[in-house]
Each structure stands twice: as structure tokens, then as C-alpha cells.
């Protein structure tokens, strides 16, 4: 969102913006100050700063979101194992408590910065900014941000990532996109995780999940995948490498353009 060009004024809210310039009087004679800022402007500002930082180093930043237990850490472990010979990766881990997930990532030979949020149910751009100071982006290709397991709150906070991935695990049910529209609308890619359970949990229909997602006007691709038996991992890895190549192309082009 933008403070200066008025792009916060949508056809839906234009009638609410008072006429008469920045300063105008209300009916009872008090002063009314027009603002029209996003409530999360400070977060968005830091997120833009984080993104600039990633771009400058050509590092792809991926924000992983899902319910608790949908398999984010398992997916990262499998991804690291698949790519560690060709790419340098790091993980920023968000959890309310414990360093357990960071420990699991480090066991695969990749740096992991644990953010323990205490009672906060989401990561915000400031927390990620602090974590970035502990990483040498110069030496990295991809930073994964594993958000706090929660299908509600993380959706409202831009972290400075390039892409949002939302995991929907098979045991959760195929109607989650309709139940959590804010979260699934933010997804650039939806991964139907724990697909090895599909034969047992046959009430989960991947086509239903796709349909509910399309009904949110989302054209995000949907991949079925199992980190456990590696089914579907190829499509995910291919998507990731294509995103990295596109970022490198974009940032290379940006760097080549005159200031």
C-alpha cells in the first residue's frame, strides 16, 4: 500500500474520503485530519526494506504459511536435501516457543535463525528484519521464512518475501480455502501436503481444494506433494528454481538499468 499516490482510494472507499483537502471541519466544528494510510504502514515500510535487501543480493525469499502440523518443516528438510549441493539456503523459523524446528533444519547443514514470538501468533516485517542481520545474504540463494503455524494472522503481514506458499495438508480437509479466504488469497502457490495420506483419507478431493481456491479468484498453481515419500517433490523444486531464475533475471536487469 502506498501513502502518496492515493492508491489506497478504491472505488469501495472513495466516498469515505472527505472533500475539502487535508484539513476540514466537521459538523460540530472539530478538526478532521484526512489520513488514508494502511494500518500496517510501518510494517509495510520495513517489508519493502527487507525486499530491497533480498533483491540487492539476488536472494529469493519464500514465506511458508499453514496450520500447525501441516508439514512446513518436513517440506523444508526434504527441499534442503534436494538442493543443498547446488544452492545455498537459510531458514528463518517462527514459533511461539522452542528451538526445535531450527534444530531440525540445522541438522541438514543449513543455517537457521529461530524467532520465538512468545504470544504473538504471526511473524512481522520487523522480526524478519532483525533475523536478517544474523544472515550473510551475500552467500545465499534462497531464504525460507517458516511462519508461525496459523491460517489466520500471518496472512495480514507482509514480511518482504517474494512469494507466499500456503500448505494445505490432506488431514485438514479440502474446503480450507473457502474457510480461510484471507490466507489462501495471499498464496502464490498452494501445496497439498501429506499426499501419501490420500488413499486413506479419501474424503479429501484435490479437485475440490482447487475449485475452492479458484472461487477466491486465485490462479495460483496447486501441487500435490509428499515430503515423506518424495512424490510431487520434482514439480515443487522445479517451481522454486524457476522463481529463482526469474528473480536473478529481474534483479540483474534492475542492476543494469541506469539509476
Amino acid at each position: 500500500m502506498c501513502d502518496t499516490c492515493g492508491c489506497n482510494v478504491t472505488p469501495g472507499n472513495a466516498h469515505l474520503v472527505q472533500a475539502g483537502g487535508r484539513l476540514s471541519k466537521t459538523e460540530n466544528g472539530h478538526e478532521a485530519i484526512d489520513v488514508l494510510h494502511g494500518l500496517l504502514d510501518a510494517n509495510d515500510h520495513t517489508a519493502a526494506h527487507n525486499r530491497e535487501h533480498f533483491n540487492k543480493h539476488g536472494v529469493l525469499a519464500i514465506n511458508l504459511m499453514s496450520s500447525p502440523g501441516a508439514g512446513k518443516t518436513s517440506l523444508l528438510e526434504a527441499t534442503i536435501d534436494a538442493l543443498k549441493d547446488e544452492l545455498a539456503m537459510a531458514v528463518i523459523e517462527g514459533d511461539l516457543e522452542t528451538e526445535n524446528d531450527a534444530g531440525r533444519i540445522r541438522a541438514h547443514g543449513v543455517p537457521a535463525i529461530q524467532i520465538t514470538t512468545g504470544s504473538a501468533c504471526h511473524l512481522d516485517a520487523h522480526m524478519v528484519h532483525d533475523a536478517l542481520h544474523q544472515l550473510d545474504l551475500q552467500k545465499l540463494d534462497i531464504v525460507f521464512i517458516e511462519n508461525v503455524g496459523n491460517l489466520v494472522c500471518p496472512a495480514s503481514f507482509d514480511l518482504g518475501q517474494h512469494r507466499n506458499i500456503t500448505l494445505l495438508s490432506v488431514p485438514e480437509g479440502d474446503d480450507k480455502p473457502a474457510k480461510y479466504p484471507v490466507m489462501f488469497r495471499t498464496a502464490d502457490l498452494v501445496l497439498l501436503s501429506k499426499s501419501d495420506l490420500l488413499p486413506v483419507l479419501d474424503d479429501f478431493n484435490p479437485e475440490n481444494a482447487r475449485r475452492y481456491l479458484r472461487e477466491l479468484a486465485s490462479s495460483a498453481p496447486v501441487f500435490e506433494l509428499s515430503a515423506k515419500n518424495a512424490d510431487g517433490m520434482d514439480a515443487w523444486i522445479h517451481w522454486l528454481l524457476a522463481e529463482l531464475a526469474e528473480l536473478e533475471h529481474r534483479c540483474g536487469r534492475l542492476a543494469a538499468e541506469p539509476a
Partner: protein
Amino acid sequence: MHELAICQALMEQVERIASEEQADQVLTIHLAIGPLSGVEPRLLEQAFYVARAGSIAANAELVTESMPVQVSCNQCGQLSDALPSRLVCGHCGDWRTRLVSGDEMNLLHIELVRQTSEDTAGAQDSFAPARRSYNS
């Protein structure tokens, strides 16, 4: 319950603006919230009553405009109302739509009182003794 974090961000903005405008008091804070912003207005209001304590907006009222969910169809070009969980075109039924309203999370304007609002020295003077007597 990220509404508390969002409310704290709101209070920081309100306090900054009030200080820039040299306000004595913030009376009303007007927000526009759409159902697809991920913010629950009722929870935001509860958080506001906690967050406003001791601030320049300690007695302020929070007024929230609920924004409608509306989509513009990429296929037939028409505008229609939609449900947060179903953003398809109300006319042709296509899913390829663009949200034109419903994800707002904006601070629209604030109403405030400031001692210089009459733009006269007299108004400032009339405020000053009252303050002194309050302090004594």
C-alpha cells in the same frame, strides 16, 4: 488475535499525527475495514479500548466503516457483490475477477481538538490559565 498488534500500529500512527498537528485530544478515529483484510472489527475495537489508555486518544471513539466485498469481472467486465469465500462474478459466474473492495485496512481520518484551532492568540491565552489551574 493479531488485532492487538494492528491496534498498536494504529495507535502509533494516531499519536504521531496528533503530535504533528499539535492536538490536545483525539476525539474520533475513523477506519475502513473490509472482511478480506483479515481484521475482525469487533476484536479490533476490544483491543482499542486497551491500547488507548493513557494516550492522547484515551477518550476517543473508534468508528469502523465495514466495506462491501465487490469484484470486477475480467471476462464480462461487470461489477458485482460477492462473498468473502466466493469471489466469482455475480453476472457470468467466471472466477477470473479482480477485487475492487473488501480488503481495506485503512485509517481514513481522525477528529481532534487543538488549542490553536481558532488561530488567535486569545484562544491560546484562554486555554493557558485553565491548564495552570489544573496543575496547581
